[in-house]
């Protein structure tokens, strides 16, 4: 069976196709018209079944014949597929932070998720990077060059941005401010992880796991072995695709997922 999963996130839309254990992928920006982006993403592929997840999942279901799963379940399925030993998942995407714990068989146990505030998410980091005049891809590396962190107090994106500007104008080195920004969100992430109980291996997924400084700080602060899969922002879409498979086919894929390299 050719199985597809689509994850309609706040910042990007991800499509994963699993066919005979091989994975193909496609990513596009969400834009102001997510439905059109979804349509153009799926039109180049044929599949037998598709499952939608992400904040736009219900919108997708209104227009396509599909199953719908929450992002939390999708990440649980996807993380298990890339790391058999996974018991804890941290997903930081554009506007969500999720911490999920799994039992030995990969069933979801507890989960935590931000509800009223998107501080510490991908979008927060994007805005802070912009304030520092740094590309989002280099932001983590810049922070890692600092020996000490500037102190940031605000979790509100708008106030934090003014704090950054005020620190820079006082002459604080750019990399120390960058490290300070990363440090400021770790506390929040850690408390969510602790509420679901941290166990090895911790799979860190979502776009923010591409940030080297975040990975390092979570390893240090959460004292867990952190595993970042290839293409970590695709784990939700992957989980959605796995959701279409029967248990046997899904089990066969467990820990075995490898991407076709472009």
């Amino acid at each position: 069976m050719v199985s597809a999963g689509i994850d309609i996130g706040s910042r990007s839309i991800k499509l994963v196709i699993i066919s005979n254990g091989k994975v193909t992928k496609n990513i596009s920006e969400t834009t102001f018209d997510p439905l059109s982006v979804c349509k153009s993403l799926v039109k180049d592929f044929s599949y037998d079944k598709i499952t939608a997840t992400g904040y736009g999942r219900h919108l997708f279901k209104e227009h396509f014949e599909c199953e719908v799963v929450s992002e939390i379940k999708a990440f649980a399925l996807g993380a298990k597929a890339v790391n058999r030993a996974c018991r804890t998942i941290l997903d930081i995407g554009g506007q969500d932070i999720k911490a999920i714990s799994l039992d030995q068989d990969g069933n979801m146990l507890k989960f935590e998720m931000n509800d009223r505030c998107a501080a510490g998410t991908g979008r927060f980091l994007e805005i802070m990077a912009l304030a520092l005049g740094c590309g989002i891809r280099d932001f983590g590396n810049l922070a890692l060059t600092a020996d000490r962190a500037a102190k940031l107090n605000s979790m509100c994106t708008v106030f934090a941005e003014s704090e950054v500007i005020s620190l820079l104008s006082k002459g604080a080195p750019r990399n120390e401010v960058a490290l300070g920004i990363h440090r400021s969100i770790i506390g929040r992430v850690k408390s969510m992880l602790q509420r679901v109980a941290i166990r090895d291996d911790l799979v860190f997924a979502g776009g923010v796991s591409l940030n080297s400084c975040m990975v390092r700080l979570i390893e240090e602060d959460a004292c867990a072995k952190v595993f970042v899969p290839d293409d970590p922002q695709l784990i939700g879409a992957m989980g959605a695709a796995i959701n279409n498979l029967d248990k046997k086919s899904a089990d066969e894929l467990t820990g075995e997922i490898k991407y076709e390299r472009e």
Partner: protein
Amino acid sequence: MSENYNQMWTELGLDLKAHEQLLGILGQAYQDIFLAQKNRPEGMKYFDFVMSEVHGLRIKELLDAKKQGRIVVGTFCTFVPEELILAVGGVCVGLCAGAEFGFAEAEKYLPRNTCALIKSIFGFKLGKVCPYIKSVDLLVGENTCDGKKKAYEILGTLHDKLYVMDMPQMKSDDGRSLLKVEYKKFQQKLEAISKRKINIENLKQGISIVNNKRKAVHRLNKLRAANPAPISGLDALLINQVYFYDDPIRYTDAVNKICDELEVRVAKNTGVFPVKTPRILISGCPMAVPNWKIPMIVENAQAVIVGEESCVGERGTQNLVDDSKASIPELMEEITTRYFKIDCAIFTPNPTRLDHILHMVKDYKADGVLHYCLQFCQPYQMESGIVENALEDANIPALRIDTDYSQEDAGQIRTRVEAFIERISR
């Protein structure tokens, strides 16, 4: 509304424009949330009618009762003994406070981080949209949580009919004595404003009316244990909400009628959701009309709510008053006994609440518990961790949701609720 009540509303001093706006929102929400449900019991038509006339016919009834010399008493809490109000020939109405209305006005008097329920009490009063609060001869506050205690001090400056009842905080002998004394004072207050004395006959009659109302709700609760569930959680919540302001005898009759209908459904093994539908128990803060936010999200996600451990639900309606005693002091003692059992989170410690939750999970065959808190409701938020840990230790999945009356967090809550349903439905 079938009739034009504008004159009545004007005479009550309502802000007609704001009121019309409120009814418009309410009517649309009711259509989308309740009437859109499939396979509703026929008996819900009565409750639909009551809801459609909530600011109309029911208010007219209250005003007619007043013309006959009966008093109308507004309450905010299940600790106010309706039996005593009925004994003096009064009408008891629970004031709803379940909508985000007039919050900007309310925040002139209250801190922003006050729970939505208290803000709503002020919002309705200040926004001049609640015909109930305008009709009452007595408005009963009760010293339950700190938020309410202090809010009543302020409300007293805005409403001249406010009467505040003190509340114990511990289930000790002293606590019980305090409640008994407060009920005695409340009896005297009621007698003074109604100019009617409580005697053994009218007290027994009051007790019997309220007991019958509770028995009817108990019957409904038992029927919800069936799988498939014969009635949606939304409709059952609505019945529990209407409990607070409908005529008690007519209400009892309507609940018993719907129970007759549900009994037939249960016997035929039919219901509102398929047999395998995940079953959820709600526990926590009260959901006052028109606060339908969480049940709507849960049931739209294809799970069914099978019980409410809540003041608007079984915490408020469980236990009857023993009416076999033959003197007023003995009956007052029995009333105290019944109300003192309410396991509200203002009590410390409050172990019977946890026992009740575990019982309800078992009795209604719930697959998981959604612990619902209003933000800034300290007593229930503090207990939510205790409840969650105890449930998870007993292998009962639990989800904690802290929210308010706004729709701001609806998308995030929907994701969490859907994930919880995925968790419990394997």
